[in-house]
């Protein structure tokens, strides 16, 4: 058990690539922290530096209060689960799990009882004498976990441990990981690509981009109060809608109508260098079919009408895609997000993704009046990506004065 502190940790590879820059992160004892970000943002490199598999180029890494920059992995007392499982194919499951204990020179009986215990927790007992080649993906994954937990290390590091499993197994293993971590209370750093894993597993999520930390916080906070355009677009599925917004005559001219500027927004805009061109961000669930909104709610938002493109009924609610006119929002972050998400990403385009109630009678092809909640909108500076609606009082929306 120990806390892990990254103090301005950076990584520069011999070929000049800066994979990680000045990462500051304090992971409390027993905390479950998720590292998430697009491919190539330096998640694995960060994890490998904590593990000791990569040298730290700059900054300091402390585990349990002790500087470990120059310690070999074996002296850091940390266990790691690899994406590829990395089981020793020449050993049985039992030998695989016993390997770290044998290296630690424990006596046979202790080793045996520890292995049996870990096997029981992970339901591996009947498989103990098999070799990895004769196991299914999920079983291999559990053996890899088993090998990590037998040693009762100070911390667990996991690099996309579930990404090789099929969707159903992944959900199952997610709960296994979650339960295991709670049960053992061991500090865990978990790298993932997966939105759901990031949102559901950890106590805190660290969002990285291009080797730098964008925001650290509990999942809900990142979702509700993204510090910048990148975080806003990265967290959430379907992701936030981004629209071009121009400040004109005390209003924001956007493709979904003129948005009034509340006092708090105005203050943000007046503060120094705020630009005249902005990006408006609205999450899909903050839209609603105008017919289904009561008067009280209606006052807190704005309505507009737009042609319906596609309706996807999910049972519990409906994903409705609208086409709106007007300029596309453009920013470096949005392009990066689009590239990372491939064709799925709809945030940067002129399309609008909304999540409406299942009761909505919306049909494809018609034009529909839609309401959206002004209290929940975000405004971003296109050049810096900064969220301008995020002030001291954090939860402030455009109208909440």
């Amino acid at each position, binding site marked *: 058990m120990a806390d892990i502190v990254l103090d301005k940790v950076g990584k520069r590879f*011999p070929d000049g690539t800066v994979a990680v820059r000045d990462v500051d992160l304090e992971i409390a004892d027993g905390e479950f922290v998720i590292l998430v970000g697009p491919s190539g943002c330096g998640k694995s490199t960060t994890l490998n530096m904590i593990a000791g598999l990569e040298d730290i180029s700059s900054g300091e890494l402390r585990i349990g209060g002790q500087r470990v920059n120059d310690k070999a992995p074996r002296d850091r007392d940390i266990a790691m689960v690899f994406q590829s499982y990395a089981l*020793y194919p020449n050993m049985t499951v039992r030998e695989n799990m016993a390997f770290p204990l044998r*290296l630690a020179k424990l006596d046979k009986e202790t080793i045996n009882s520890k292995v049996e215990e870990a096997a029981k927790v992970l339901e591996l007992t009947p498989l103990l004498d098999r070799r990895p080649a004769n196991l299914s993906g999920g079983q291999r994954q559990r053996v890899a976990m088993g*090998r990590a937990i037998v040693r009762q290390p100070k911390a667990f590091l996991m690099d996309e441990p579930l990404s090789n499993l099929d969707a159903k197994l992944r959900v199952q293993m997610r709960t296994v990981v979650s339960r295991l971590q709670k049960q053992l209370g061991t500090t865990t750093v978990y790298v993932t690509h997966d939105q759901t894993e990031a949102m559901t597993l950890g106590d805190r999520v660290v969002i990285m981009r291009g080797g730098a930390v964008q925001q650290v916080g509990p999942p809900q906070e990142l979702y509700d109060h993204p510090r910048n355009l990148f975080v806003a677009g990265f967290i959430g599925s379907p992701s936030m809608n981004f629209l071009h917004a121009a400040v004109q005559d005390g209003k924001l001219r956007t493709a979904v109508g003129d948005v009034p500027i509340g006092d708090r927004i105005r203050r943000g805009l007046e503060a120094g260098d705020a630009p005249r061109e902005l990006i408006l961000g609205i999450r899909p669930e903050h839209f609603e079919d105008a017919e289904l909104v009561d008067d009280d709610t209606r006052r807190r938002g704005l309505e507009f009408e737009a042609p319906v493109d596609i309706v996807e009924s999910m049972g519990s609610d409906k994903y409705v895609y609208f086409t709106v006119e007007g300029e596309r929002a453009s920013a470096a972050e949005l392009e990066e997000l689009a590239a990372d998400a491939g064709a799925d990403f709809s945030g940067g385009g002129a399309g609008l993704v909304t999540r409406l109630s299942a009761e909505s009678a919306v049909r494809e092809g018609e034009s529909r009046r839609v309401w959206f909640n002004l209290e929940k909108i975000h405004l971003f500076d296109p050049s810096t990506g900064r969220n301008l609606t995020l002030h001291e009082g954090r939860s402030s929306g455009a109208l909440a004065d």
Partner: protein
Amino acid sequence: MAETTTRAKLRWGLLDVIVVVFALVPVLWIASLSFKTPGTLTDGRFWPREWTLDNYRTIFETDQFVRALANSIGIALIATAIAVVLGAMAAYAISRLDFPGKKLLVGVSLLIAMFPQVSLVSPLFEIERQLGLFDTWPGLILPYITFALPLAIYTLSAFFKQIPWDLEKAAKMDGATQGQAFRRVIAPLAAPGLFTTAILVFIFCWNDFLFAITLTSTERARTVPVALSFFTGESQFEDPTGAICAAAVVITVPIILFVLFFQRRIVSGLTSGAVKG
């Protein structure tokens, strides 16, 4: 469909038989000769009319052959062991690390492998005489290692490259030192490669004639292939053919044993199940 496969099988079978016969007939012929008496040696029959073990008795009675056999076994084993160990370390470094001069190292070892050995024989002879290595075991072991190393490095680095790097990282995380990770995780997985290399190197050392004849002069270090060429028989008047054949049969035995012994350890597909790719 079934017809074509049986026909194909027959064709392949026939081809295999032809190849095997082609390769084995001379060997069997020599074996047959080694069992013949001097009188029937030239009767041209494949199957000996009169069986005798005299030839074998003769070669084992001559000190010459026994000494040569001991030299051969000793020199080949030592050279193989050293070449495989050094080769394994070099190959491991080449397959895992990026260090300055790596390309040069690989290039130079290729160069050594391609260098015509005949042109090195005279200089080596001079050098070894100056150094006092001439006609000693090290005098043969050293050049054997030199020429076996490129071979060892090439075969082994191919094997090491197949082993997932994650396994080594996992071993380090599990508390292994670099050495332990290599010995307990990487080496067992590279075992097929190590054995294959050992066989190839051993055969190379065992069969060498060129170095053995130029760098030795007495029974001190003379190996079997050379000793065979010096075979004269018991007396001047005796035809040594039978004895030479017997010796030739005897020296193939260690090779066969060596291959059989290691072949069982060459279990391919040992790395399957390590990682999900």
